[in-house]
């Protein structure tokens, strides 16, 4: 069994209005040095497999077909044996 930890990030060229709005909150909080806030996705799940390579393949498929939209997002992941 593996635990997958997936990070999905929007490409830098894609606007992140949510990050921008949150950054306004930082300014109201009085934080002067914060910039380029980006809000992305972190996803965890289990993969019921003893083969690391097979698990990687399944995670890659899950990421590229559903969890991330390849038109605007990139993903990276790591597997931890549990």
């Amino acid at each position, binding site marked *: 069994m593996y635990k997958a930890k997936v990070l999905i990030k929007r490409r830098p060229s*894609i*606007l992140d*209005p*949510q990050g921008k*709005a949150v950054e306004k909150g930082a300014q109201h909080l009085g934080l002067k040095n914060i910039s380029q806030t980006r809000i992305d996705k972190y996803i965890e799940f289990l993969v019921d497999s003893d083969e690391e390579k097979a698990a990687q393949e399944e995670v890659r498929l899950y990421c590229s077909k*559903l*969890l991330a*939209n390849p*038109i*605007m997002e990139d993903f990276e992941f790591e597997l931890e044996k549990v």
Partner: protein
Amino acid sequence: MKVKFGVVVFPGSNCDHDAYYSLKKVLGYDVNFLWHKDTDLQNSDVIILPGGFSYGDYLRTGAIARFSPVMNSVISFAVQGGYVIGICNGFQILLEAGLLPGVMLKNKALQFVCKDVYLTVENKDTVFTKGMSLEKKLIIPVAHGDGNYFANEETLKNLIENKQIVFKYSSKNGERKESDNPNGSVMNIAGIINKEGNVLGMMPHPERSCNPVLGKMDGALIFNSLVNNIFN
């Protein structure tokens, strides 16, 4: 021939009944609901992917609905030339399914926008717009939080070259300025078709602009145009 519309119902669809009511009770077409777990399109001539919040808009709008069993049938239907109209969340599902190019981002101002907008008809040679005057500005309401259409430069170039941009947000007079854009959509794009011309995706809700009682009828022009041009 009496045209038969099929309105897909996903968990979280909330404009399915509006579409059903407008098409059946106001415009007089045959309409069936198609449950998302079914794969039989019940011999529909036109498939409507309605607005709403399918699967709670989780992950990305339309991302999970795209894998509903019914979508395999809808994709095959579209690939074979069947007519599909995706409205709002339906447009987002068409993008996720790859039937139309591009992606939908959160509205630039982060607010949910619900109001009437003016639309210019950018291509009146589609089956959905044939017979419309380029002078006329359609009045159709939008209601969405993720309507900020985005595509990379190459995709936009193709959309322009192939005349796939069908509707743009405009002023009453047809100017397409940033101030007329409710969501930050690139080039004020409100609706596009696929290259083959049988799949339309649009953020505004034509089904909410079909009833003289509500004082708006411009949405009906789109449904009637399709029926008159293809099935009559």
